[in-house]
């Protein structure tokens, strides 16, 4: 297939598609040829949708979730409990937590995690904005929902230390045994976390 000389625009499209996550050379060609034979309106609709996400989607001014207006749909929802703020690393984590339907509060998206070895420091995240939010008042609980990885833990520890002086209670998601797993096959780290995080039953 790669021996065949394709015309300029088609070749460019294939190259652009190949840069997308999970798209290999075969899939890129399949998608490109599909778009070539698809109706003009349908193809232009896709192009304008792509342009919309770059022009209309922006970070929420309060929580940094993806938003189409000044505030995202969660921050602007009057039914949400504005006094509980769930702190996540990225918008994808927010979407997954939101899908549980359990969270009545609002969010704060850090846009990453602290990663000293990769040169990502607290100043690169939205931690300052979180501290400003807490200082502004009206918040009773900060729920840290960073990943249970070393860098997620570093981020949680850092946030806990900078929020200490505000006196607002900070909690962290539980960790340990996954539902459906078994103690027999759990490794030591999971068992340690589960034992340390045990609660009254």
């Amino acid at each position, binding site marked *: 297939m790669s021996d065949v000389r394709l015309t300029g625009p088609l070749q460019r499209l294939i190259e652009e598609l190949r840069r997308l*996550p*999970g798209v290999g050379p075969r899939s890129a060609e399949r998608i490109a040829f599909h778009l070539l034979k698809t109706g003009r309106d349908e193809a232009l609709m896709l192009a304008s949708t792509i342009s919309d996400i770059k022009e209309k989607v922006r970070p929420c001014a309060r929580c940094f979730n993806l938003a189409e207006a000044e505030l995202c749909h969660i921050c602007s929802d009057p039914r949400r409990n504005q006094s509980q703020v769930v702190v996540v690393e990225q918008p994808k984590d927010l979407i997954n937590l939101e899908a549980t339907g359990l969270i009545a509060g609002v969010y704060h998206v850090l846009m990453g995690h602290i990663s*000293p*070895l*990769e*040169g990502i*420091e607290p100043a690169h995240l939205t931690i300052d904005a979180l501290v400003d939010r807490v200082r502004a008042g009206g918040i009773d609980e900060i729920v840290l929902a960073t990943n249970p*990885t*070393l*860098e997620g*833990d*570093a981020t949680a*520890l*850092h946030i806990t*230390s900078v929020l200490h002086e505000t006196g607002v209670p900070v909690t962290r998601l539980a960790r340990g045994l996954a539902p459906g797993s078994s103690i027999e096959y759990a*490794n*030591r*780290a999971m068992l*340690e*976390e589960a034992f*340390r995080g045990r609660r009254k039953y």
Partner: protein
Amino acid sequence: MPAITDRAIVLRLSDYSETSQIATIFTRAHGLVRLIAKGVKRSTSKRVNVGLDLLEGGEIAFVPSKAAAMLGVLTEWRQLTTFSGLRTALSRLYAGLYAAELTSLLNEEYDPHAELFEELEELLRDLDAQQPVEPALASFQLALLGAIGYAPMLEHCIICGHTPRSEPVYFSARAGGVLCRDCEMHQIEKVRMDRRLVGRLAEGRSLTPELSHALRDVLDYQISQILGRRPVVAASLEIALRATGR
């Protein structure tokens, strides 16, 4: 080529694609290895029981790289410990990351140092067990410098062999040790150091927290000179030590 198994500690992870990472891992019998870990981020992956994480200890199976500067392939990872106690304070967490950074920067791939592996494990265990950070880190840094042939002479002047009796006392990375007042003019590259530290080390006595910090300063200086720059975790570690105790 069949996979090799070994004990291992994860030093560094960087994203390679949606589903794979490049892992820098220190193994007991094969030294530093750089491996591509495919599918580790997928929760359904069967080969790797949980996603790899930094500063975990475990058992590894991997296919080594065929040539220098190429990546080997991680085929199995069995997590044994996360040294979870070091994740309870930033100073301990950054001390662990700093040790990981130094280990990955100062070792050659496939150049084994079993004794250094044990030292790194011991440091992580000490941090896990909430031992004071700086003495544990200093003793790891000394072991690391020794393993790569840069053990500093800290007990007496490296030029005249005497124990310095008066201030000022210097340390030179180029000379590889302490310089007394009479010998310091022979070296341009040098920093002042605490004379009491030399005395304590010469007598083989244990260090006060203040002198452990002074020792770490000297070792950090030497390491920065060897690398030609300051390690990236050094600044975060210093801030955390100041805030949460040494």
